[in-house]
């Protein structure tokens, strides 16, 4: 790849080789490689059904791959479940949000990490500090500039964007070592999306790397340090946004262009490439 030669690469935070996942006769991950470097925002892009969600589910312990190896800070690791990944500081916003619909915003935000009252009320009676959780939730939601009817609303009664904001705020709040976001702005408005990009930047600035799955190319180009292009269940290319135009990246994603070993591109599908408006590589 174009950028593989120059600088000495630091050890990846999270990486994988040859991941495979089959569902009956559908192959969702087909020998995928993956690499996330410290402090970077890595965008993962690809067509619908390319296997992006499956890939990050495998990386975050939410599904067990049929084959392949995952490494965290260079050590091979097998997550027994999402909890273990989380214990290693990996925080994820899943595409289907993984919220409890009948519970309210604060309860969802702190699910699995509730705050207890100080003193014996908390230690002996294990009493929740509902006020504190409500207060902090309100702050997190405010940071995303999401309008809300009531913090006590059950999540199932929220608008699509409000619901997504809850999941995003939750992951951001708990970020420690890696943050993974599967299409976090899909349901968000212009202003709210901008806030999420800001949030991602703030997380990155704390030195925490972020994996961002998104179909929104302007967002990707605005924020990503590197782009992982996923296609047909595997990584097709790993590039820097500065080296390619948006049209080229889209062409790689759809298979019109291929990235050669030296980082150049070749047209693999003439018709598609010209339809995508890409010059010959």
């Amino acid at each position, binding site marked *: 790849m174009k950028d593989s030669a120059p600088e000495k690469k630091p050890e990846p935070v999270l990486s994988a080789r040859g991941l495979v996942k089959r569902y009956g006769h559908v192959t969702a991950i087909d020998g995928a490689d993956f690499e996330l470097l410290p402090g970077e925002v890595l965008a993962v892009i690809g067509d619908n059904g390319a296997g992006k969600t499956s890939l990050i589910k495998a990386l975050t312990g939410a599904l067990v791959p049929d084959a392949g190896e995952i490494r965290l800070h260079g050590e091979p690791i097998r997550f027994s479940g999402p909890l273990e990944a989380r214990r290693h500081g990996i925080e994820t916003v899943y595409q289907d949000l993984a919220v409890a619909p*009948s519970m309210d915003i604060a309860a969802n935000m702190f699910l*699995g*990490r509730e705050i207890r009252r100080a003193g014996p009320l908390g230690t002996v009676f294990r009493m929740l500090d509902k006020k504190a959780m409500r207060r902090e939730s*309100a702050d997190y939601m405010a940071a995303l500039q999401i309008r809300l*009817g009531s913090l*006590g609303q059950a999540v199932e009664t929220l608008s699509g964007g409000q619901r997504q904001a809850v999941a995003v705020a939750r992951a951001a709040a708990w970020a420690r070592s890696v943050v993974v976001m599967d299409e976090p702005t899909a349901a968000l408005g212009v202003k709210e999306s901008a806030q999420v990009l800001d949030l991602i930047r703030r997380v990155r600035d704390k030195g925490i790397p972020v994996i961002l799955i998104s179909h929104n190319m302007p967002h990707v180009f605005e924020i990503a340090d590197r782009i992982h292009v996923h296609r047909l269940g595997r990584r097709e290319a790993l590039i820097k946004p500065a080296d390619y135009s948006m049209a080229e990246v889209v062409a790689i994603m759809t298979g019109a262009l291929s990235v050669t070993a030296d980082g150049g591109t070749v047209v693999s599908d003439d018709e598609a490439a010209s339809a995508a408006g890409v010059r010959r590589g």
Partner: protein
Amino acid sequence: MTASTMTPTAVKEPTAARRLLTAPAAGPFAALVLASVFFSLSTDQFLSGGNFSLILQQVMVVGTLAIGQTLIILTAGIDLACGAIMAFGGILLAKLAVNSGVPPVLAILLAIAVCGGFGLVNGLLVRLVPLPPFIVTLGMLNIAFALTHIYSDEQTVTGLPGPLTALGKTFPLGRTDVTYGSLLTVGLFLVFAYALNGTAWGRHVYALGNSAESARLSGIRVTRLTIGIYTVAGLVYGVAALLLVSRTGVGDPQAGQTENLDSITAVVLGGTSLFGGRGTVLGTFVGVLIVGVFRNGLQLMGVSSVYQTLVTGVLVILAVTVDQLSRKGTR
């Protein structure tokens, strides 16, 4: 300015009054009050402290079972075995103390532990195989039923030592005699109301019932939680066994046969959804009381048993209709 214009840090929260009106147990409670008013008007004996204490005492066994049942239903499960587990616990308790000479308190603890063991097995099967709770507990219903009859040889155990019947004794509260057992049941309801509403564990129970997969993705230890819930339910059935024995004064192998359906009925009457994740244990308490009040009131009115059944059928439907209608306004 409408509420939707507010920023999140200044959101309007419902008033206390509104919260009371929209509390999940408000509908069932309204039905309970209506039924009580009806029976007070139609019979002289209904409205008295003594009669209320009696009703409480009559529902304490099924009420205690219904606590465990609520926990399991909140996880989107169901427990068909609760009555059978309790019956086994009761016989075990009685036979250990009477026939095997085990010290009464130890017998009590052992029986409760064994009931917890049944719950544990249920939980393991539900979560680890995994199997549908309906089937697991149906199987366990048969197993516990058979074990009860094999172990007891169908013999009612009498002559129980004092500690086994202590909870059946009464103490005066004002001018009314109240059994200690009723108090224990009410206490358990409060403890579980607190645990479900005031602790992280309770929230996890609800989250599990909302969606086991979301709960898992949220980092909740779903396996441990599920198995724990079934085990706790089993322990609670063990307490119900003690209450049963102390109420009837015997170890009865025939006990517990209608309590499975009765406990589920109480839970559903109390407004808990059979699909999990929605409901309260205090609602269950109200549901249990509704059933107790119906039975007591109808018998006091002298309705003959077949007609009692008929009227109960109609009233059960009416009670939940009241609940539904009381909610319509707030939707």
